[in-house]
């Protein structure tokens, strides 16, 4: 099984390299280190969110509210910054993570305690969070000149050749790798997704594990909310609209099974990078950005079809048609 997953990541990695090579044969400027660093920095929010989403999907849930969570946190910290410009960036980050955690735990609460299907909960909270942004901001934009210099500068500061935002993404990838592969919580994510009934018998609290997954996803969305608003220096109701689909797409492309229990940190990161490369390559090869949506959609469908093919051959199927029907 690990061999299969490894080969899957290798396939994806090969596809990304091939994509970059093909683009670079016609547009050599694309592979300039500075451009690749830029592309990675652009993809950082997607990588961070894909990791949170991965934890949620591993436990057989889905979090469609991440983009709305990101936008609401971004708006709150931007308003906070205009009201109290003296707040240092670390304090803002803590507030953003805390706020994201609150929203994540709202999702987790309904899934854990009320046993409402996650898709219903997060579809609901997605619209509620967006609506709340409108309520608190009155539909107004917060523009670059209203934000403090410190607030905007932090994610863009260059450390060792890369912006802080990229370093944060790298740090979170490393932390998540440890969490998923080396801790009981990470193990519990796989157990709950692989077989919830068996997980109960091994003493794992399924609902609580799902709650933790939503909490993590919310915290990362909150953090990304600050990074996003500070980097693009604007906050309004519709920032990152539809981004939740891209996040789910990154996970599906990265080989994380939507049925839960299968996936890896490397896969999620590569899935996000794959979408990031496409997104950054479109303007270079002169394709209208209007193609972006259709391409992500096709990527999701192709990836999920590919996943199903590789996962189906994992054992002897006795009742082929019966398995097909479920």
């Amino acid at each position: 099984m690990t061999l299969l997953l490894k080969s899957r990541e290798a396939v994806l990695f090969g596809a990304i390299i091939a994509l970059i090579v093909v683009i670079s044969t016609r547009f050599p400027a694309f592979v300039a280190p500075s451009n690749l660093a830029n592309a990675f920095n652009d993809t950082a929010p997607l990588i961070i969110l894909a990791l949170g989403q991965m934890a949620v999907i591993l436990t057989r849930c889905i979090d469609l509210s991440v983009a709305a969570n990101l936008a609401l946190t971004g708006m709150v910290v931007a308003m906070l910054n205009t009201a109290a410009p003296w707040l240092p960036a670390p304090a803002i980050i803590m507030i953003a993570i805390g706020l994201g955690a609150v929203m994540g735990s709202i999702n987790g609460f309904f899934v854990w305690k009320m046993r409402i299907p996650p898709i219903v909960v997060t579809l609901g909270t997605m619209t509620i969070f967006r609506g709340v942004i409108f309520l608190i901001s009155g539909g107004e934009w917060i523009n670059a000149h209203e934000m403090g210099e410190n607030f905007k500068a932090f994610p863009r500061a260059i450390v060792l050749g890369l912006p802080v935002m990229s370093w944060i993404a790298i740090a979170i990838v490393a932390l998540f790798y440890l969490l998923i592969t080396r801790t009981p919580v990470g193990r519990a994510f796989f157990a709950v997704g692989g077989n919830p009934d068996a997980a109960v018998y091994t003493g794992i609290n399924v609902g609580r594990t799902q709650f933790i997954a939503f909490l993590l996803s919310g915290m990362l969305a909150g953090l990304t909310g600050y990074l996003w608003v500070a980097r693009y220096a604007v906050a309004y109701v519709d920032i990152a609209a539809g981004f939740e689909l891209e996040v789910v797409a990154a996970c599906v492309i990265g080989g994380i099974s939507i049925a839960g229990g299968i996936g890896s940190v490397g896969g999620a990161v590569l899935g996000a990078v794959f979408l990031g490369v496409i997104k950054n390559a479109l303007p270079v090869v002169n394709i209208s950005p209007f193609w972006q949506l259709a391409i992500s959609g096709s990527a999701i469908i192709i990836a999920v079809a590919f996943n199903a093919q590789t996962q189906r051959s994992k054992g002897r199927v006795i009742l082929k048609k019966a398995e097909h029907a479920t």
Partner: protein
Amino acid sequence: MSITATNRSIPDRLGSPAQRYLKSWESLLLLVAVFVFLLNSLASPYFLDAWNLSDATFNFTEKAMIAFAMALLIISGEIDLSVASIIALASTAMGAAIQFGAGTPEIVAIGLSVGLICGAFNGALVTGLGLPSIVVTIGTMSLFRGISYIVLGDKAYTGYPASFSFFGQGYVWWVISFELVLFFVLAIIYGVVLHKTNFGRAVFAIGNNPVGAMFSGIRVARVKFILFLSTGLMASVAAICLTSRLGSTRPSIAVGWELEVVTMVVLGGVNILGGSGSIPGVVIAAFVMGLVTFGLGLLNVPGIVMSIVIGMLLIGVIALPRMWQQFAEKRSA
């Protein structure tokens, strides 16, 4: 997404038919509808006006047409999140047809066939390749709308023929609009199909136990495929009504409708995990949602705030009965 079997407890004996009828979700919902109606008529002096009420029906008729088909699909244990994008694609195709000088019958035929093709595409991926419908339709949701964006970009199609405007703006008699009539006709068709035919029974059977349904001789994949087709078709019917009503097509048409349609279905008492639900429930839910949004509109509440209300309704209608149940269990324990 596969969902493990929920524990359904079977009561020792059923209450009398009248008692069951009173306790049913539909009668509770009807009560809510009456309450919202009264509240609205107290809150705004403009509410109780035949033409205003007629206008209010446009808030839900198009969404409800999709909701009927979606109800059957959800009862069978699948879901289609791409319906709003099918509207966008069907509307774009109809707008493009006009540029080639198509008349009203051709436009309608093109719209309906785009809906059928989209539905068949979803259905083939789900039943043919055995993929989870939620991921497939999240994918096709971006794909279908993405194609509209590729075709239209930031432009819009206008110039629909005058005869085409009947579908969304026409009145059959006095304040009774064509859309309202179509809404009731479709409600009756879907109600009869779900509750009075073998096909409807098969839908319930599949939702409760797909493997069991297969062993009892139901062609599960075929039934599901037909349900995806019908959802695609209803989305294109809604696209015809909406395009005719607005008189123009933009790629952002009907954004977020999938959420409202699913909310309507769940509010109507359909189990999101499949296996139970009714069309009368969806009809009343459509009225409740239409009245709520119309009432809030009369009170000058902005659209995005209404979406908060819709989101809370969606979670609330599922959470409240469960909270009540948990509370009752604790008390009896």
